[in-house]
């Protein structure tokens, strides 16, 4: 990728977007009938499928039961054909385990778990095609799936990955930008109150730029939340037409 500029002089990125432009988000809810809630979301070329089972009785170790709230159990996995190089193990490696923990942390902040003590909510996310922004696509898909399952949440959880290049924050990174040495920051936001559910960055960034980057991430997340809201309302309309209300 030598010679390809992540941000050209005219302000265009590798795929022709401007610095603050998000990729196209397309989503569908209720794709599987057997699960309690399911959703499929595409953010550019990254495709994620989220499935929610629950709330149901604790499975497995009863000792993990929480007496006053529900336990959220997440699993993140990638299809073996999702990346350019074929992935040998779909889940169980360190990266997937870390992502699962992040998802759990994110949704514990948003789902109203006190309403379901001693029970368990399972959220399973599968990446079908990976082109950068895996974590954010997962969170967005899982939000829709939790809504489809009818589990009450405080607010939508929207996530976005932003990067910093040439003094400019870039919103919604694709794989080429993520691997091109950009300092990337992942943010999960509850848009109405501006509450941050998860903030993660593991690259070098000067502290003067941190605030600009977080602001850019929050704006991008608010943009995503508008799209998700639109998807939910449309799905509700379709469903109510079918049930004759």
């Amino acid at each position, binding site marked *: 990728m030598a010679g390809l500029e992540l941000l050209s002089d005219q302000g265009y990125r590798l795929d022709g977007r401007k610095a603050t432009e998000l990729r196209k988000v*397309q989503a*569908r809810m209720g*794709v*599987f*009938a*057997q*699960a309690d809630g*399911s959703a*499929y979301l*595409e953010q550019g*070329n990254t*495709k994620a*499928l989220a*499935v929610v*089972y629950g709330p149901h009785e604790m*499975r497995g170790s009863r000792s993990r039961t929480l007496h006053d709230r529900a336990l959220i*159990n997440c*699993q993140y*996995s990638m*299809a*073996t*054909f*999702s*990346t*350019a190089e*074929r992935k040998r193990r*779909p*889940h*169980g490696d360190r990266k997937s385990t870390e992502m699962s923990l992040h998802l759990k942390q994110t949704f514990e902040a948003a789902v109203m778990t006190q309403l379901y003590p001693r029970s368990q909510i*399972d959220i*399973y996310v*599968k990446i*079908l*095609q990976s*082109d950068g922004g895996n974590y954010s696509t997962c969170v967005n898909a899982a939000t829709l799936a939790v809504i489809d399952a009818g589990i009450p949440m405080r607010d939508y959880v929207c996530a976005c990955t932003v990067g910093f290049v040439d003094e400019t924050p870039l919103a919604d990174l694709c794989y080429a930008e993520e691997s091109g040495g950009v300092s990337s920051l992942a943010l999960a936001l509850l848009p109405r109150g501006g509450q941050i559910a998860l903030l993660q960055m593991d690259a070098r960034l000067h502290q003067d730029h941190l605030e600009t980057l977080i602001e850019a991430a929050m704006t991008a997340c608010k943009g995503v939340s508008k799209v998700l809201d639109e998807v939910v309302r449309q799905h509700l309309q379709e469903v109510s037409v079918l049930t004759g209300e």
Partner: protein
Amino acid sequence: MATVQVSEAEKVYILHGIRDDLRVDGRGCEDYRHMEIETDVVSNTDGSAKVTLGHTAVLVGIKADIGKPRPLVPNEGYLEFFVDCSANATPEFEGRGGEELGTELSNTLYKVFNNKHSVDLKSLCICPGEHCWVLYVDVLLLQCDGNLYDAISIAIKAALFNTKIPRVRISTDEEGGKEIELSDDPYDCMRLNVENVPCIVTLCKVGHRHVVDATLQEKACSVASLIISVTHKGTVTCTRKVGGGSLDSESIFEMTELHHSCFTLSESIHLLSRPGSGWSSTST
């Protein structure tokens, strides 16, 4: 497979219904559920297909890679199967729960394709003894409602039909070493002949009758099942009995007769393929 709890009364109801050729969802004993096949679903694979058979959904992605041929057959490529029973299908498959079923399914697939006629492996050879195409067939189980073998075999056939393998040119450089060049044109590719790719038909013995395309509930009432993989010409490539009960030999012969009448399914499968647009459905 993922199991459902079926009460005794429900079992009796299902058994009596099947005895009179009427299943719970109104089908006859030899009818398949509504099937939808869609190809070209995942864009960064060389071939892909998604099959929905009632509530069972399977996604297959094929990636072609250049590798070294097996020592015993230096002028053939090969296929590698991997079945991923994901937690999406049922929470029992979380973590390592789905590994056992996945291994069983992929071992059966190896047996089904382990013959000279299903896929023309010689066309996958680039340079005998040194380079060949290896097709990694990855099966992803999205939803599980019985009859996994059939859905998987149909999806693999559709995905192999959809696979585009780029053409290669071998050139020798100055020191005599071989260089492989892939053509730059994305449309300059080789397609596979999938006429002889077998389809698997599963028959479950419920009571004294045999049913095709059993749902999980019917499977819970059945004694054992027989899977036969058959090509459209009628050649059988693999036969297997699965399940905890025992079958007597007359049952097996009856089932084989029934399989003959069901293999017309495999004839119609490879005629249907249309590039899909995301997850919009195309039905058969």
